[in-house]
Structure formats: structure tokens, C-alpha cells
């Protein structure tokens, strides 16, 4: 089978699996969706992943983390209940952090855990607690165009797989001897990006070469802070200066509602 056919079959199975798992009003066939998606991803991965028997421990760790990440990512976008989505997304974040650590990006691994899982995700759950009504709502049980969405995603993943696979095919044939291309030796990598003084190097780069960008990012954070406060204040004034009450859960009564049903 040619690589193109393999990619097409894998992407098609992935599309079917994603479609079966997405909320579409029925819960029938979700397990089949899981199986199909797993097989599709496996077929796509079979092009790329050749298991290296020389490092059994590293391989086991890598595959365990990678599978956890991808499975929880699928769970995060397909669960009916938004709380489950958030919890699966937390697992994705843990997996991503582990993958970053596996690459030697220690600071980013920890920052992902602290910033994403610690701050952003908790804020999510906070908003969900404020806003989520009991049980599965109608809009959690259906999706926009699940067939088209799954197909688009699968085509994108298939094309990306092809664009990763094709340039390195020659390397694969030659048994993974590729160092001449980057001209980066293992020693150079050990002294630079895999240096034990990881933070010192990263901080040095951040505050010398990228100093202006750091200042801009700080300004951006300030602007976002002011913006968030302004949005909330504006909404308060629109509602006549009343504090946001939990009565909004019922929805409707006397609030500013956009016109639905026209046009």
C-alpha cells in the first residue's frame, strides 16, 4: 500500500470515529467511534512511528504519555457534560506537560501545569459552576454539522501527517542517520538546549535577545486585565448597575435579550 492510501484510510477512519463520538443527539455508537478513531490514529501513526528497541524504558514512557494525551484530547472535545470536558482537558494538559518534560523543556512543563492546569482550568470550572445548569442541556447534546467538522479535522490531520512523513522518508530508508541535515551534533545540543542549567540559559535568552518582546507581553497582560474589567463593568451598567445575581440562571425575565427568530 502506498503512503497516500494509508493516510487516506487512516484519515477516513478517524473522521468516522470522531463523528460517532461527537454529540449529535444520540448516544448510540460512541464505543464504536472510540475504536474507529483509535484504529485511524494507529494507522496514521504506523507510518511515522518505528519503535526503537534500544531504549525500552524511554519508549514505554513516551507511548504511555502520548496515548494518554491524545485519548484525553478526544474525550475533551466529545464529552456531553462540560465539566467532564474540563476534566479530560486537565488530563491533556498533564500529558502535554509530561511530553514537554520529555523534550527537556523543564520550565515549560512546569509552566504548563501551573498556568494552564492551575489557573486557566480552575477559572473554567469556576465559570462552569456559575453558569452551568443541571444535567445535559440541549446545546450540549447536539453539535454544529458533526459530519463536516469531523471530516475537516481528519483531512487536516491527514495532510499534516503527509507533510511530516514525506520529507523524512529518505531518512527513514537510510536508517535514521540524519544529523548532517541540521549540522547539530549531540555535543552541541547537550551544551545548549539540553544543558543542565536550563533555567539560566532560558532566562538569559528571554531577557537579552527577546527583551522587547517581554515588555510587549507585559503590556498585553495589562491591557487584557483592563479589558476584562471594562467588559464586566460595561455589562453591569447595561443591567442598570445591579450586581450579577444567581437569578440569571433561569434566564430571561426582564434582561436585555437579543431578538431571536428574525431575518
Amino acid at each position: 500500500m502506498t503512503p497516500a492510501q494509508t493516510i487516506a484510510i487512516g484519515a477516513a477512519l478517524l473522521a468516522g470515529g470522531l463523528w460517532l463520538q461527537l454529540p449529535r443527539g444520540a448516544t448510540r455508537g460512541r464505543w464504536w467511534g472510540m475504536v474507529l478513531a483509535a484504529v485511524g490514529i494507529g494507522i496514521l501513526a504506523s507510518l511515522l512511528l518505528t519503535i526503537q528497541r534500544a531504549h525500552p524504558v524511554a519508549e514505554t514512557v513516551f507511548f504511555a504519555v502520548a496515548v494518554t494525551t491524545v485519548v484525553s484530547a478526544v474525550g475533551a472535545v466529545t464529552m456531553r457534560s462540560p465539566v467532564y470536558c474540563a476534566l479530560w482537558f486537565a488530563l491533556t494538559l498533564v500529558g502535554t506537560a509530561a511530553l514537554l518534560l520529555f523534550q527537556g523543556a523543564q520550565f515549560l512543563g512546569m509552566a504548563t501545569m501551573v498556568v494552564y492546569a492551575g489557573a486557566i482550568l480552575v477559572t473554567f470550572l469556576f465559570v462552569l459552576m456559575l453558569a452551568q445548569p443541571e444535567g445535559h442541556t440541549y446545546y450540549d447534546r447536539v453539535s454544529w454539522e458533526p459530519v463536516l467538522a469531523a471530516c475537516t479535522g481528519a483531512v487536516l490531520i491527514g495532510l499534516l501527517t503527509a507533510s511530516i512523513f514525506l520529507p523524512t522518508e529518505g531518512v527513514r530508508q537510510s536508517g535514521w542517520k540524519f544529523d548532517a541535515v541540521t549540522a547539530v551534533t549531540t555535543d552541541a545540543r547537550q551544551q545548549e538546549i539540553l544543558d543542565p542549567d536550563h533555567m539560566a540559559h532560558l532566562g538569559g535568552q528571554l531577557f537579552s535577545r527577546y527583551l522587547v518582546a517581554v515588555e510587549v507581553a507585559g503590556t498585553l497582560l495589562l491591557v487584557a486585565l483592563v479589558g476584562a474589567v471594562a467588559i464586566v463593568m460595561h455589562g453591569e451598567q447595561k443591567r442598570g448597575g445591579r450586581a450579577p445575581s444567581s437569578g440569571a440562571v433561569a434566564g430571561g425575565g426582564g434582561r436585555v435579550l437579543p431578538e431571536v427568530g428574525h431575518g
Partner: protein
Amino acid sequence: MDEVQLLERYLFIGALLFGIGMVGFVSRRNMIVMFLAAEMMLQGVSLSLVAWGRFRNDWGGQILVIFILTVAACEAAIALALVLMLYHRSGKLDVAFWQTVREANQPRYVDHELPDEPLTVEHWPTLPPAGVEPVHSVEETIHRSHV
């Protein structure tokens, strides 16, 4: 482990996260879940960037991911404020509620009737009673200030 293979694996996982996140973003209707899916796309990009950075022996990839984290934090602040405002106006997190702002030539999206979900009996964990219940003193019950 061979560096090319490592790069290839990380790019593949990054592509998967990005694609799955995109499917979630375009298909889900809950605004918070859409937002989660967008964050997942950012995660996929971050993985690819770090992999490239290691492959090229360059710090640029990791630095860029730090800025992605910054932008994601800003995005979270703004988006959650917006979601809360929209929720206060409409009473739901449904993004289809706001379809009045669509293009004039687009047809209106009509919800179909769904059968009710079958009722499932939830089994919540319960704690077994431990020890003997102490004797409550009447004094204490009477004099306790009501909070």
C-alpha cells in the same frame, strides 16, 4: 533517541491535538467547551514549537511557547469575561443563541426536537457511619447562636 524521529513524533502529536481541537471548536455549541478546544489547539502548536527548537538547537521555540502561554492567559481573561456577560444576557452558554448577528444571506439555524435522555440512576458514594453517635447536650443545642 534519534532526533529526527523525536521531532517527527512530536509534530504528529501536535498535529493530532491541533486537528482534534479544531473539530471541537467548529462543532461544539457550548461556549466554554469551544474555548477549551481553542486552548487545545494552542497546546498542539506549543508541542511542535518545542520539538523544532530542540531539533534546531535553538531557544526560539521555547521562548515562543512562553509568549503563547502569556497570550493564552490574556485570552482566558477576556474570553471568560465575555462568556459571563453573554451568559448574563441570554441565560445559557449556547452560541447558537447569538445567531442573529450572522450574515444577512445566511439561513437561520433551526433546532430539531431531541428525544429526552433516558434517566440514569446516579450512585453517589456514601460514607458508612463510623463509631457511636455521641449524646448531644440539650444546653448546647439551645444556646448555640444561629449562623
